[in-house]
C-alpha cells in the first residue's frame, strides 16, 4: 500500500552567521512525513530541532529547498494562509493569550481560520477542553491561574479546535513534571490514533520518543530514523 505523504522537506538548507562565522544548521535535508503518524525528533541542544520545526510551521524561511504540504510548496500556499488553515503548533511555554480564559483561548482558533466558524463555538470549545481533561470550571479561569499541565492542555485544545491534520509541538512536555508529561504524550498519541492527525514533536526526552510511531534524530543537519513502532 502506497504511503500517503502529509508533509515533506525537500533538500532544505538553513544557516546563520554567528560571531562572524557561518553556522550550518540544516544541510540539504529531505524527509517525508506520513499522514496520521506520530513523529518525534530528537537531537542534542543546538542541533537545529527548533529551527526545523520553525521552518515546518512557516515561522521562518529556508535558505534553499522547499517544504511541501500535501504536495504543495508552502511558500506558494502563502506562509500566513498555511499557518492559518493547514497546521497548528504547540510551544513549550504554552503560548496562551494571558488576558483570556481557557475557553476564550480555544474559541479564538475558530476565528483565525478561513473555514466557516461553527455557530456553537463556545459549547464546542468546552467539549474540546473536556476531551483533553479540562473541566468547565477550569476552562473559565484566566489561563495564568491554571497549572503548567493545565495550560498545556488548553494549548493542545486550541490546536485541536483549529481542525487541521498537522500538529507540531516544540518540546511541549519540557516544562511539565513526569506525570503530567505522560498525560500530555498520551493525548498526542490519541490525536494521532483516534483523530488521524500527523503529530511532529521536537523533544529531548527518550520516553516521549518511545511513545511515538517514528522517532527521528537530527544529526549534522540531516534527519535519521531511529525506530519505527509500526
Amino acid at each position, binding site marked *: 500500500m502506497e504511503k500517503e505523504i502529509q508533509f515533506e522537506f525537500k533538500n532544505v538548507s538553513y544557516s546563520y552567521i554567528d560571531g562572524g562565522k557561518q553556522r550550518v544548521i540544516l544541510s540539504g535535508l529531505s524527509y517525508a512525513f506520513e499522514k496520521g503518524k506520530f513523529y518525534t525528533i530528537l537531537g542534542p541542544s543546538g542541533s537545529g530541532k527548533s529551527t526545523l520545526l*520553525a521552518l515546518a*510551521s512557516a*515561522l*521562518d*524561511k529556508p535558505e534553499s529547498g522547499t517544504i511541501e504540504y500535501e504536495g504543495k510548496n508552502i511558500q506558494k500556499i502563502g506562509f*500566513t*494562509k*498555511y*499557518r*492559518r*488553515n493547514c497546521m*497548528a*503548533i504547540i*510551544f513549550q511555554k504554552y*503560548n*496562551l*493569550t*494571558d*488576558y*483570556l480564559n481557557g475557553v*476564550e483561548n480555544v474559541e*479564538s*482558533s475558530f*476565528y*483565525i*481560520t478561513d473555514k466557516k466558524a461553527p455557530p456553537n463555538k463556545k459549547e464546542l470549545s468546552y467539549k474540546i477542553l473536556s476531551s483533553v481533561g479540562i473541566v468547565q470550571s477550569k476552562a473559565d479561569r*484566566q489561563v495564568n491561574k491554571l497549572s503548567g499541565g493545565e495550560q498545556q492542555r488548553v494549548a493542545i485544545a486550541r490546536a485541536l479546535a*483549529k481542525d487541521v491534520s498537522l500538529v507540531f509541538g516544540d518540546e511541549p512536555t519540557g516544562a511539565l513534571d513526569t506525570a503530567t508529561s505522560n498525560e500530555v504524550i498520551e493525548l498526542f498519541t490519541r490525536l494521532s490514533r483516534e483523530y488521524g492527525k500527523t503529530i511532529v514533536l521536537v523533544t529531548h526526552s527518550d520516553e516521549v520518543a518511545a511513545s511515538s510511531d517514528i522517532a527521528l534524530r537530527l544529526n549534522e543537519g540531516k534527519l535519521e530514523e531511529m525506530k519505527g513502532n509500526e
Partner: protein
Amino acid sequence: MRILNHGFLSLIRKPAKVLMIFAILFVVFSLLFTGVIIQNSIDESKVYIRKQLGAAVEYKADYQKAYNEELAEEDYSKLQLSKAVAEDIAKDSAVSQAYYTSSSSLTSSTMKTADYWERDGKKEYFDNTYTDENGNEVKEDVYFQLNGGNVAEPIEFSEGKYFLVDGGFPTEVQVEAGYPYAMISKELAERNNLVVGDFMELKDRGEHTYELEILGIYDGDKAGNMGNTMFVSYEFNSMMQSMNSENSETMDTVSRIIFMLDDPLEVDGFVERNASKLPSEYNYLDAATAQFDTLTKPLDLISLIASLLIWVVFGAGIIIIIAIVSIFVRDRKFEVGLLLSCGESKLRIIIQFVYEILCIGLVAFVFAIVVSNVSSTFVSDWIVENQLVEKETVQEQGSAYFETSDESVFGEVNMNNIAEDFNVSINQDVVYNLFLINIVLLILASLVPLSIIMMFNPRQVLQD
C-alpha cells in the same frame, strides 16, 4: 469580531496598563487641547475684529506720507486718486460694489445754514454775517457740500450711518443721467421749510444757477454736524465741475473711492492682490489695517505662546506617546508572535492594537476636552483682564493725525468690544480638529512600534 472582542477583553482585564496609558494620553491631550483652544479663540477674535471693521476698503491718498517726506508741491498730483485704476480694481471678484464719490460745493444767498454747534445743550447756528473794515454788516452766501455718488443709495446710507426720514432714493437712470436731485438733511429741511418734491436754487462760483429737486430727507446720529451736506449724483457733480473748469477733459473729479466686498475676511487678500495696481506710492488701499494691527497686537503674544505650547507638546507628546505605546506593544510582543504563528494576518493584529489604543485615547480625549475647556476659561479670563482691558488705556492715548472719524466707513471696534467677545470655548469645528489630531497622534504612535515588530518573522518575535 475577534479583534473587537479580544481588544475589549484586553482593556478590561489589564486595567493597570490601561490606566497608565490613559494618564499619559490625558496629560498630553489636555496640554495640547488647551493650546489649540486658546489659539482658536484668538483666531476667532481676529475674525470678529475684522468683521467688526467691515468689508469696506478705501482707496486713499497718503497725505501723512507726503507730509512726512515733504513732498514737493509740483508732485502733489501723485496723491490724486484715479477713477480708471479704481474701475480696474473694482473688477476683482471679491468686490460687491464700488462707490465713487466726488465733492463739490454750491451756495445760496437765500437759504439758512443747518450747520451748528452746541453750547450748554443749546444749538447755535453758524452766523454767515460779518462786519467789514468800514463797519458795514456783510451777509455771506451759505455754502453747501455736495457729495456726488455713482449709486442710488450712497454708502453712508447702505452702511447705516444715515437713513431717510422722508422721500426716497433716486432711480438708477436719474443717477446715471446726472439728474439734478439732492437728498438733504432733516436739519436743513426744517430750517428752510423744505419738503420732498421742492426745488432748491443754488449757484456755483461761476454764477451758474442750478435747480435741484429734493428727493429725500435724511437723518442720523451725526447728521446734525453734516447739516449742509447734500447727496447728489456723481454725474451731476462732474457736469457741474466741468462747466467751471478750463481744462475739463483732464480733470479727475473723484474724491473718494470705496470698495465694498462680499466678505470682511476677503479684505486682506483683496488688498494684497490689488496694491500693485495703484498708480503711485502715495496711494494706498486702506482696510483699517493699522486699526486691526493695533487691536490684535495684544492677542499676538498670547497666540505665539499658544502656538509654542501646541508645537512643543505635539512634538514631545508624539515622543512620549510613542514611548508608552511601544512599551505597551513590546509587552505584548509574545502575543503578536503567538497570533502570527496561528496564522493571524499582520494587518488584523495592527488593527486590534490600534483599536485598543484608540479606545483608551477616546476616553482620554473626552476627559481632556472637558479639562482643557475649563483650564482655557481661566486663561481666557487672564487674557481679558491683563492683556486686553489693561492695554486699552494705552491704546486710547494714540490718535491718527489725518483720521476724520465722521467720514470713516469702517466699523467701530475697541478693546472693550473684543474683551466682551473674547470667549474661549469649544465649538464643533475645534472638537473635530482636536479629534483628528488625537486620532492621527495615536495611530502614528501605535504604528511605529508595531511596524518594527512586524518587520521580523514570527520566530524572531517569539524568541526575543
